[in-house]
């Protein structure tokens, strides 16, 4: 729980010296809680005050970065148990694991496949974030890490409990700041030393919650704070239980040993069961979810579930504004206009697909609101549609000059025809009427 300005003020010198740049200590306290000032700006602050305030100002769950450069991912930093209370902030990272003992050709193919696991969703790319290499215990991890570092742009997860194998692998990929998975009761000191040496995040791999507390405290005592937690849950029921306890202890009880993101390793043998295990982990608090190289039809639901669970409930999901192609339209194909609210767009797209008539769909930027809401707010007007028609060069993409307008805003027809010089055809009120509408216009499937 964050402190209020009054609580912070109690710890300040109350001298109103003004050296921090604001006239009074109370005003400074208010800046502090809004994170617009730092305690260092106060020349009279004591070491005691610093500890008291910094301790309570620290977020209850650390944010941890895995990897380096463009593809680095941030996880953790979560502040709520339920998305409707605020939002979940950092989408969990999805890792696909490959065994280090795969023959080089197979490993190379595996790396290439994981790298390519990206799915286009109207202007958004969903996909796998991390490549995990699981130590087969036969001395192959270093070579596998070398190949992965050379061939993959994804940050790595090194899965080994052998500090020697981990150290050798880090020689090849340590600069990429991989996640080390991980430290056990037996190897913790050596793993912490490696994590420190290479400045990598380190996962603590326990066998139950109580051992996890002990590991976290040992790592803390050794002065290392880039940690992830794995309670070692052996069943789906246990996973849900442990993840909930860790998240609650961290946020509601400020239990420091659990103030880190978690890792869930999905291991169900049946791929569909593993997919459902991963979706459980996505919904219930995991920071990193590790799965086998499942086929695309299993990965796609996982990354989509993550998109949904981590979307901000305050902000409607939007698709990219602009011209989208549904089917394989030609310059003769119909053009429909709608808004960029994802649910509205997907309905239109789905019904155009169902009609089997290829078409162009112009998504106008309405800040993610539906047709009638945007129209009422003035974001979906003859002016904004005409502007979008120009901006996205409709006239260059199609040979005809007819635009289909949602029936709910038929009132815009006259003004839009005037502004655009196009024929405006009033379409159905509901997108479900599109197939019938196309048939009535004589637009038939190719």
């Amino acid at each position: 729980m964050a402190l209020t300005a009054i609580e912070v003020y109690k710890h300040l010198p109350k001298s109103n010296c003004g050296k921090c740049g604001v006239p009074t200590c109370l005003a400074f306290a208010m800046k502090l809680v809004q994170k617009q000032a730092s305690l260092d700006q106060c020349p009279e602050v004591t070491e005691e005050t610093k500890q008291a305030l910094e301790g309570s100002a620290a977020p209850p769950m650390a944010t941890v970065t895995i990897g380096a450069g463009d593809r680095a991912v941030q996880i953790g930093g979560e502040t709520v148990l339920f998305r409707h209370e605020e939002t979940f902030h950092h989408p969990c990272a999805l890792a696909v694991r490959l065994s280090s003992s795969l023959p080089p050709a197979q490993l190379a193919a595996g790396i290439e496949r994981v790298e390519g696991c990206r799915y286009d969703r109207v202007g958004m790319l969903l996909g796998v974030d991390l490549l995990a290499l699981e130590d087969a215990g036969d001395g192959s991890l270093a070579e596998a890490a070398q190949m992965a570092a050379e061939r993959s742009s994804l940050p790595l997860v090194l899965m080994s409990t052998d500090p020697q194998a981990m150290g050798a692998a880090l020689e090849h990929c340590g600069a990429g700041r991989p996640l080390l998975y991980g430290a056990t009761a037996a190897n913790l000191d050596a793993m912490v030393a490696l994590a420190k040496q290479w400045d990598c995040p380190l996962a603590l791999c326990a066998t139950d919650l109580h051992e996890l507390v002990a590991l976290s405290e040992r790592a803390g005592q050794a002065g290392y704070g880039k940690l992830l937690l794995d309670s070692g849950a052996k069943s789906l029921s246990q996973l849900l239980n442990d993840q909930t306890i860790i998240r609650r202890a961290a946020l509601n009880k400020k239990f420091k040993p659990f103030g880190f993101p978690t890792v869930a390793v999905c291991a169900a043998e049946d791929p569909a069961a593993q997919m459902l295990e991963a979706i459980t982990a996505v919904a219930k608090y995991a920071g990193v979810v590790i799965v086998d190289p499942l086929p695309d039809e299993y990965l796609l639901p996982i990354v989509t579930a993550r998109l949904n669970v981590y979307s901000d409930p305050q902000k409607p999901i939007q698709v990219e504004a602009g011209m989208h192609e549904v089917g394989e339209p030609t310059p003769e194909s119909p053009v429909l206009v709608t808004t960029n609210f994802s649910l509205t767009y997907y309905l239109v797209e789905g019904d155009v697909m169902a009609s089997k008539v290829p078409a162009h769909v112009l998504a106008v930027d309405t800040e993610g609101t539906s047709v009638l809401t945007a129209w009422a707010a003035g974001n979906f007007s003859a002016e904004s549609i005409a502007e979008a028609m120009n901006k996205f060069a409709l006239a260059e993409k199609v040979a005809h000059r007819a635009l289909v307008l949602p029936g709910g805003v038929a009132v815009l027809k006259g003004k839009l025809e005037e502004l655009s010089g196009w024929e405006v055809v009033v379409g159905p009120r509901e997108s479900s009427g599109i197939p019938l509408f196309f048939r009535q216009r004589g637009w038939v499937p190719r």
Partner: protein
Amino acid sequence: MELAIPVEQWSGAVGTVTLGATAEQGGTRRRTLTLGGESTLPFLRLEGAIPNPPALAMEVLDASPEKWPEPLRAPFGNVLDDPAAWAVKCVEEFGADAIVLRLVSADPQGQDASPEQCAETVRRVLQAVSVPLIIWGCGDNDKDNLVMPACSQAAAGERCLLGTAVQENYKTITACALADGHLVISEAPLDISIQKQVNILLTEQGLPLDRIVMYQVTGALGYGVEYAYSILERTRLAALTGDKMLSMPMLSVVGSEAWKAKESWLDEPKWGALERRGILWEAATAALFLHAGSHLLVMWHPEALRLVRAMLTALQPA
């Protein structure tokens, strides 16, 4: 530092609703189905009881689904134009806990079947299976108000779940349920205040809380599922914190929503094997509804039902 397991003390619980009536109870069902009763969050046993696991119903349409893609048709063989045979297959072969009979034939824009025709289908399905029946109208308020009384009478005493009562149209269906000993689905469009309002309207008409199941319009994975997800979570929290008017069990429609998503049927090689995709999309959608707190899922594909059943087993403590 010692870990103190953070247990929440909930003041309320989800109510229970029992579908179906046996011979002793005035019906002909051999099995009844009790939903709800939890005094904790979904699958979280550390702070409360979960007396009844979530149930899986399968949906039967009373008009042959012409547009179903092949992977969805395949497991049903030749029963898709016979609702009674379809229902039997769902129960005996696929293990459905209940049957949802969706009266699509009544739609005035489509076949416009008469109330008597629909009632006859209800009788046939009741005779064919021994599990509880959920009777769901075509969605046209005026027509449903003609069809539901006939169907309700045909099923009198069977403690069927009738759907759906909405804010603008709830009186007829509630009167049917009161007259013939049935239950009602209280529907609201992703709005917890409207949900509560509809529940209040039904109880004011005399329907007790233990004869109401809530239904928030759902949406599929990738297509708005997050709205329903948060509504379900908020509703469960409301029940656990003592709001009686939001304490009824919740139903989610999974099959028809999931198979609408293009990921379920579009031939797109980048998305993987088409013959598995719809099944997985349905199972994944179901998983999210279960974690959000749903009590009764309406499924389409038997393989998706099997996968979800296995997940429910894995969520039981060892």
